[in-house]
């Protein structure tokens, strides 16, 4: 710019605050001097407004724009320098202002339209859509839409304002579908002891949505667990407390299986070594195993070695003891037994055929001492005579008399009445009963001086019933004599060596207390599942998969050879039991789960929720029960 262009006559103020600029300038022509009017019309149509002075029109062009023009105004007083009006344009500033209004307006329109037009009903887009849901939520909330979780959705502005101050709207809706084994809004879904102050929880503390279909439950970091737990630590390696002393072998097994003796002694025994399993997986089902690896059933695991033992152990129902005199009425006996001859009594002195003692079972049933000849003579001979007449009837009566339920059905199952009668008839004649053959195939049989029961095999129902019976009656006898006889009977039946079937050799007997404080003894017939640990998460199968099936068990389950496993089974209290195996220590897990190897977050082993379940019907159609017709 040349110097004189700054002169006060050459250069006027620039007014960037005015909204219009000369239209000519926007077309790159010379702009007029006056500039656009305030209302946006062209201000430069005329250069001046001529003035009539003494009958002459004078040009009144501003001095700064050149002063009066050469030609002067026209004869009628019109300015001689006129040009067609321009179309003033808005300045950039004004356009900018309009764009701002447009942009904000567009956004508001977008919001407004989506509020009014729901996408389900044809609206274009949802301006409130916060993002895609996880797959499961997306599927199951399809019908209800947003209001499945957001209670305030679809309600008016008043509800919206209230919702600002409400803190639990979302979590309340979660429990419409989800429920737990305990209270939903307490930590770990458990009511901890009341003196412990733990804040109530909200689902949204950990679970977030609207992050896409592949989103899963938010994983907690150790720091977040530490936010509630007083015992705070960083990881398994740093600060996690040592596992409990007995972990994981807390409860006494129901079946006494001494791993030490089996693994170290019995399996090596040449007699059984071909039947013995080669590895732990020979007995334990390791496929699809979870927290617990159960052994296979008796038939698979134990039968091959133990079956023969069971059949050897028999119940002695009745033994003909030594008798003092013959007290049975011969005539009646002959009649009852259908003897062909008269079998008159011999007048010689009576010589008992048996010199045995009375069977404990009989002693208990008749409530007579088994060793006192004087006392048991008469009742026993009466019993024998009754047996000759009515076979099992007296026994059934005696048995049934012990309890309200009729147990004779169970206890005397498969008893052939002939057995009792024939034996009784022989003994009544003071003769041994000669069986026709050896009772090889089990069941009730009479042999010489005894009525015996031979178990058919494992889980023989009669044997089991007799065990149960012995346990039941031994705890509820009032009279001392009776009680001691019951205990004696029980001791015999439960004896590991002599007990019928040898059940108790393997099955534990436990004292159980009921709510009133009464205790009774129970045989643990069934395999006892591992304790429920609802907050633990451990899967054997993937560990085994990684570590291998052969020797991996012994990596964590280390046999403790010194411990006396069977000792505690002598008592009925399961408290002092110790496992065959050393309890698993933290360092065992840390062999692999450490900072430098596989890191262990809290949630890899621990679950937060207690028994999560669904309470909502997931399927629209329910299965119909079969009709009665």
């Amino acid at each position, binding site marked *: *710019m040349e*110097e004189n*262009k*700054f*002169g*006060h006559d050459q*250069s*006027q*103020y*620039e*007014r*960037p*605050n*005015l*909204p219009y600029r000369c239209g000519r300038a926007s077309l790159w022509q010379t702009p007029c001097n006056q500039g656009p*009017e*305030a209302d946006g019309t062209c201000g430069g149509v005329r250069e001046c*407004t001529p*003035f009539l*002075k003494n009958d002459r029109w004078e040009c*009144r062009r*501003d001095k*700064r724009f050149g002063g009066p023009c050469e030609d002067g105004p026209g004869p009628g007083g019109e300015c001689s320098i006129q040009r067609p009006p321009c179309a003033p344009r808005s300045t950039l500033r004004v356009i900018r202002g309009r764009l701002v209004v447009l942009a904000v307006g567009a956004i508001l329109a977008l919001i407004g339209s989506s509020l009014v037009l729901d996408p389900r009903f044809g609206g274009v887009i949802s301006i409130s859509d916060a993002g895609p849901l996880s797959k499961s939520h997306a599927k199951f909330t399809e019908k209800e839409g947003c209001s499945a979780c957001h209670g305030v959705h679809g309600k008016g502005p008043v509800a919206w304002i209230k919702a600002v101050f409400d803190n639990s709207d979302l979590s309340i809706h979660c429990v419409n579908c989800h429920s737990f084994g305990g209270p939903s809004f307490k930590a770990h879904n458990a009511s901890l002891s009341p003196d412990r102050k733990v804040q109530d929880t909200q689902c949204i503390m950990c679970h977030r949505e609207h992050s896409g279909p592949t989103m899963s439950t938010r994983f907690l970091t150790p720091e977040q667990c530490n936010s509630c737990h007083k015992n705070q630590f960083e990881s398994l390696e740093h600060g996690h407390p040592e596992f409990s002393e007995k972990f994981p072998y807390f409860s006494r097994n129901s079946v006494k299986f001494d791993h030490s003796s089996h693994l170290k002694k019995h399996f090596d025994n040449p007699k059984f070594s071909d039947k013995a399993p080669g590895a732990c997986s020979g007995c334990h089902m390791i496929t699809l195993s979870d927290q617990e690896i159960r052994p296979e059933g008796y038939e698979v695991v134990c039968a091959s070695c133990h079956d023969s033992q069971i059949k050897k152990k028999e119940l002695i129902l009745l033994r003909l003891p030594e008798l003092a005199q013959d007290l049975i009425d011969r005539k009646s006996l002959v009649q009852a037994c259908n003897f062909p001859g008269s079998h008159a009594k011999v007048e010689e002195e009576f010589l008992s055929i048996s010199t045995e003692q009375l069977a404990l079972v009989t002693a208990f049933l008749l409530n007579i001492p088994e060793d006192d000849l004087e006392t048991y003579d008469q009742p026993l001979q009466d019993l024998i005579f009754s047996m000759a007449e009515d076979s099992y009837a007296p026994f059934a009566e005696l048995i049934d008399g012990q309890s309200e339920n009729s147990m004779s059905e169970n206890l005397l199952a498969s008893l052939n009445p002939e057995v009792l009668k024939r034996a009784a008839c022989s003994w009544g004649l003071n003769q041994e009963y000669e069986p026709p053959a050896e009772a090889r195939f089990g069941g009730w049989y009479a042999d010489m001086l005894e009525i015996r029961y031979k178990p058919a095999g494992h889980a023989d129902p009669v044997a089991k019933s007799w065990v149960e019976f012995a346990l039941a009656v031994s705890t509820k006898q009032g009279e001392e004599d009776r009680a001691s006889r019951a205990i004696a009977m029980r001791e015999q039946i439960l004896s590991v060596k002599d007990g019928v079937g040898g059940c108790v050799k393997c099955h534990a007997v436990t004292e159980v207390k009921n709510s009133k404080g009464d205790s009774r003894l129970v045989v643990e017939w069934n395999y006892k599942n591992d304790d429920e640990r609802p907050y633990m998460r451990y899967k054997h199968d993937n560990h085994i998969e990684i570590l291998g099936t052969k020797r991996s068990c012994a990596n964590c389950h280390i046999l403790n050879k010194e411990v006396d496993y069977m000792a505690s089974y002598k008592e009925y209290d399961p408290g002092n039991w110790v496992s065959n195996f050393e309890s698993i220590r933290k360092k065992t897990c840390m062999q692999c789960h450490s900072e430098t190897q596989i890191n262990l977050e809290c949630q890899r082993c621990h679950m937060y929720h207690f028994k999560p379940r669904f309470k909502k019907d997931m399927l629209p159609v329910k299965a119909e029960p079969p009709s009665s017709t």
Partner: protein
Amino acid sequence: MTVTTQVRPQRWDQPFGLFMTDQDVERLLTVPEISAIEESKFPTHCPLRGILKNDARIVKYSAGDIVIREGDYGNSAFLVLDGSLKVVLFPGLPGETLGRRTIRKKNPWQALKQLWNQRKIPEVRDVKRYGLQAQVREAEDLGAAHVFLQDVPAILDKNKTASLGKGALFGELAALGRTPRTSTIFAETDAELLEIRWQGLREFRKYDQGWRRLIDKRYRANALNAHLRATSIFSHLNDEDLQEVADATLFETYGKFDWHLTYNKLQTQDKTHGMKDEPVIAHQGAYSDGILLVRAGFARVSIDRGNGQQTLTYLGTGDFYGADELYRAWKGDTGVSMRVTITALGYAEMLRVPSKSVEKHLFAYWSAEREGERHPSQHSSEKSRRMQDFFDKTLTDGALMEWAVEERFINGTQAMLINLDRCVRCDDCVQACSAAHGGNPRFIRHGKTFENWMVANACMHCADPVCMIGCPTGAIHRSMSGGMVIINDDTCIGCETCANSCPYSNIRMVSIRDEVGNFITDPQNQKPILKATKCDLCADQISGPACVFACPHDAMRRVDFGETELDENTSGL
């Protein structure tokens, strides 16, 4: 179409005193100082009676009233008609006693209201307001507005004062010199004064020889003493010694008082020639015969460089030069001469204190007081102290100063300096200026540039405001406080004198409009009414100059070239 008109304002539309009557004029003509004036010497368009009636007024003061305050800028001189007054001599009264009046700034609510007062029509004026304004002001001027001293006897006791009685003239210094009042003068008894505004004084001086001599003589005598008194190196002198120095001092004027009239011509000349035409005050290499003090105007300090002169710096009012050379010569150095050439820039009033007086009163005092060598530069003015720095400047370093002096931007105390390396040309400054003035900007963001510096066309509030010289009504004036030059829109008659006078083209005439947007015209000849406008440094805004405040990149500053350090720190990032 309705056309709003306003009768073209005339010089004496707004008389200085509204209540001056012909009787007053007659009375004044009997006063000895006035009766001595020859009426016939005055032209018909500007008669003596007219001047007396319109450019002067009779003002009454009560005892204790302050007539003029030291430091204020004033536009009028006073002739004592009756009563006695006291002049407070150096050091003068403290500010609180004097009840300084400041420009009333807007309060925050008024400032905020400006947001809604932005007009889309440029230069709108409410003509009805023009008539009223004068009365309001008049009412203020009469009576109640006088500031008065609380405890006159105490002041008389503690301070040195001089008396002024009937027939005394005072205040012409500030009025004619465009400088602040040099002393405080208050009424000891009730007094009656004739206040003559400087436009009238100017006519007296122009057309009457007696007054011319009187004014000039008083001007010289008072100006001299006041100036010497204020100079630091002479501050230790007592009154007697000071008077001795004053009597010995030579009062020299160089250049033209209305230098602005040749300014444009100067700009088009060959630069080396231009400098050669500058009146020389002292030559480089010549014998130094005294200390030079600048009383008014500007002087260039330069050294020979090749075929031209390199400007080292410039001296303004209050600066002095020469103590160093004289001292060394006095101490015994031989061959000491002026190291620099000093020339007048446009107009310079110099005081030359001869070496004899300097040696007697100054050097002797310095030696007597202290042992050992004391470097005179410690007693020099700020400028002289930096003189050594200036000698070491390269041509590049000094280029900006050279340019500023050449363009006479050194005159400005608030030059609008824009750093073009920072300026993004966003016009926020212009927007802010217009926002602060109801939608009318008061400067243009163009101007002379040098390297990356632009001095924009915004009023620089010059130390020597030549725009004020020709104003017939005194609409353009220096404000009572703050010192900025302001145009009073109500009294401006649009004669364009100031706009034409300003050498930097910083004053612009605007055609005023009414509320609707039509031009307000003179009904007699339909010529638009003009008003002069310029930057007023946002005197009534809380935030100070809105332009500087609004620049988002710190590209703009209001500077005084003498004080500003313009170096690497102020260029771009």
